[in-house]
């Protein structure tokens, strides 16, 4: 147990305590307090997007741009992995 590990353990404990505390201060599990955005989507998803699945309508319609970002992340990862295992000599 050297100095570094003691330091790490101490600060990890601090962070842990704060995270646990923040869990206590959250709204009760299963009872979200505010609902403006989500309730709107639940009420309107069939009428506005024609999809039954609310999640899909969020993924591809209401927040479609995030999905483009997600697809881009995957594209980036594939390009990166292929690039890293490329042949180095011509």
């Amino acid at each position, binding site marked *: 147990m050297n100095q*570094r590990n003691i*330091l*790490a353990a*101490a*600060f*990890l404990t*601090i*962070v842990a305590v*704060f995270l646990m505390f923040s869990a206590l201060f959250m709204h009760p599990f299963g009872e979200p307090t505010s609902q403006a955005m989500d309730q709107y989507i639940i009420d309107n998803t069939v009428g506005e997007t024609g999809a039954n699945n609310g999640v899909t309508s969020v993924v591809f319609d209401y927040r479609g741009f995030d999905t483009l970002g997600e697809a881009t992340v995957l594209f980036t990862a594939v390009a990166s992995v292929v690039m890293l295992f490329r042949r180095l000599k011509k």
Partner: protein
Amino acid sequence: MIEMMLETFETGTGYWHPLVWVTAFVIIFLIVYIIRGFGEKKYKKGTGQTQAFLSGNKEYDKQLMHVQSSNLYWGWTEALKWIIDVLKKMHTGNVSDYVLWFVVVMGILLLFVGLM
């Protein structure tokens, strides 16, 4: 546009106008050039004047003459050795130490901000 370019740059307590500075520079350069012209007449190519000497001795080999960069500022590094050593020890290059610093900063900030 031109007028805007020539406006003075105010900083609150002082100001800064680069064109003035540039003008001053140009004037100084002119003076230096004129002074340089005085010595030009005595300079002759092809004589010993053009060869480099090191304290009167002949120049060494190029490789030997090269001052390596780690030798520069020797006095500075020697004087501040204690702090540089501490900092060097900090930069382990080990990624879990990097994460440790993150956790440390986060812990300190949590203590300061969270308890306020």
